[in-house]
């Protein structure tokens, strides 16, 4: 259990973390989301006592981190994959860390097996790729078999297989009853991994809720309706009909209609009464990414007038297009163009159509040994 109360950190005039209060409970993967520079890493550094809060406090199982009797056995953290001395061999690096808390040397070989680095254990870490560095950092975090685990951007630099492995590892660690706190700016990643979300923007808490609550609160569900036939006439007739019934209708490039504001049975009834056949009538739920973009967008809007760094903010959402539903209604009915449906495009990596698809995929790389502990 991690508990932060009124956590604040200022660097000179800049407030990196502002009155942050939250709880991270055991048995869950808790995602920690926010754009770059929103204070995620600073918060994590304060949790493990590297930075002193300007005010407020954060405790782990009721105690400040720096007062834990054997910190390594209670908390494992991956804060920076490159926080190693490049001249030291991977195994020696882990051995030195293990010796700090009297962890037996055998445990070093165990965690090297868990992260799949046993073949490069005797190489100097200078030559490691970012992905290998992440694995080494995860190994270091697991050394003490801790109850609380913190990971700052653990999937950065990992290949798709590695990402899947990290995802399954997080879930497995949480299923064992550990507290797992994972920061990321990749919403799609959190949608697949986390049960609970803590979202911050500009150092302030924006949301602290379950993933499904977060999505339903921050995004509108919609129905995709497709009229029978490929002609525009049927589609326009259906669109007019639904529009007349009070729905908000957008067209998608492949001819389907995106309808909000009407329940599915009502759409079916309306079409039936008008004698229109339907080829598709399906419920859709916005993805976590869309929900997140909506939320942080409003956070940016809220601060943009007083924030001279607004340019930076805009650039930080690399590759993630903001949900353009806000703009679509302004386009005239004639040249309607709506963006592709969620999940069908603009997936940063390995993004399945449905979040559940990958979650159920078989676990882990073959070289990864089970953690025997």
């Amino acid at each position, binding site marked *: 259990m991690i508990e932060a109360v009124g956590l604040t950190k200022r660097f000179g005039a800049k407030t990196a973390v502002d009155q942050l209060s939250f709880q991270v409970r*055991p*048995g*869950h*993967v808790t995602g920690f989301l926010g754009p770059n520079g929103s204070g995620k890493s600073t918060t994590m*550094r304060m949790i*493990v*006592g*590297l*930075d*002193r809060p300007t005010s407020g406090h954060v405790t782990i199982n009721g105690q400040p*981190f*720096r007062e*834990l*009797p*054997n*910190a*390594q*056995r209670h*908390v494992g*953290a991956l*804060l*920076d994959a*490159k*926080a*190693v*001395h*490049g*001249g*030291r*061999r991977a195994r*020696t690096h882990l*051995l*030195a*860390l293990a*010796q*700090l*808390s*009297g*962890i037996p040397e055998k445990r070093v070989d165990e965690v090297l097996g868990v992260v799949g680095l046993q073949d490069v254990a005797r190489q100097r870490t200078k030559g490691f790729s970012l992905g290998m560095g992440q694995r080494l*950092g995860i190994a*270091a975090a697991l*050394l*003490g*078999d*801790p*109850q609380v685990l913190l990971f700052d951007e653990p999937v950065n630099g990992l290949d798709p297989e590695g990402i899947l492995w990290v995802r399954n590892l997080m879930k497995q660690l*949480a*299923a*064992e*009853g*550990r507290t797992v706190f994972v920061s990321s700016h990749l919403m799609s990643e959190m949608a*697949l991994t*986390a*049960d609970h979300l803590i979202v911050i923007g500009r150092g302030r808490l924006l949301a602290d809720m379950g*993933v*499904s609550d977060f999505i339903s609160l921050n995004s509108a569900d919609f129905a995709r309706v497709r009229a029978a036939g490929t002609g525009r006439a049927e589609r326009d007739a259906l669109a007019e009909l639904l529009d007349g019934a009070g729905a908000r209708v957008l067209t998608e490039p492949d001819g389907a209609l995106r309808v909000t504001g009407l329940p599915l049975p009502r759409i079916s009834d309306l079409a039936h009464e008008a004698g229109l056949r339907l080829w598709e009538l399906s419920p859709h739920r916005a993805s976590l990414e869309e929900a997140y973009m909506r939320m942080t967008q409003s956070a940016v809007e809220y601060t943009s007038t007083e924030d001279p760094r607004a340019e930076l903010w805009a650039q930080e959402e690399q590759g993630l297009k903001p949900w353009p539903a806000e703009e679509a209604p302004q386009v005239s009915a004639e040249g309607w163009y709506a963006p592709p449906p969620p999940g069908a495009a603009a997936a940063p990596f390995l993004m399945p159509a449905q*979040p*559940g698809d990958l*979650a159920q995929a078989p676990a882990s790389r073959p070289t990864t040994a089970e953690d025997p*502990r």
Partner: protein
Amino acid sequence: MTAPAAARPAGYTSPLPETRPTLGHAVASEWTKMISLRSTVWTLGSLAGLVVGIGLIAVANTSDTDYSQVPFLTPALFGLFVGQLSVMALGVLTISSEYGTGLVRTTFTAAPERHRVLTAKFLVFTGVAFATTTASVMLVGLATALVHGGPDAGPHGAGEWLGALGGCVYVTLLGVLGLAVGAMLRHSAGAIAAMLGVVTLPPVLGGFLTVWESTQGLGGLILRYNAPVALGDMFGLPMGDDAGPVPVRQLLVLLLVTGAAVAGAYAETARRDV
């Protein structure tokens, strides 16, 4: 997105036995860190190589009569003048390489009692630096005594060996000062530059301070108490003409300076974010 929370266990308890970390654990860790880096091994090797190499050259080019007035340990002094730079560099690197690479964040996350880690660093460094320096110096001294120990060399007492041991303590203290400065500055190049200044500036600074009458006293003091002069005093090549136990005073001066720096290092390490 995943299984319902109700199915999750309430907490996790590790089956591994839990020991309370001690200073001994930290010393073991620091020892592993020190011997697992090529840079530290090279630095130590250069120290031993300089002292022994230059010392043996001096031994080969002197005769028995040269040692009628000076101790057998004097040949080791020439190498140690250069070798002390290696000791200081090693002291600085012991801590600043952790700050430079970011390893210190991993270390302090694993062991939030920063004093334990810092104390272990001081202990391991002091042990390694003193052992290497003393072994090299004594090797040169023994070689001199064996080669030039004839009747022309005159009588030699245990005092000169004790003096050389004091010299080794002095050089080790310089290294400890380097470690403390490294812990405060957290930057390899900056800390090494500062330490080079500590060794090389006093003769220059003292020299021009003695030019003016008002600062003459201070200049003389600086000329008297600095690293090269102190080493000369202890290795039986006195460069001043003070009466009394000068080597002890030289050691005390450095001990005071180092003590202050070490106190500063502890305070800074505990206080500052890493």
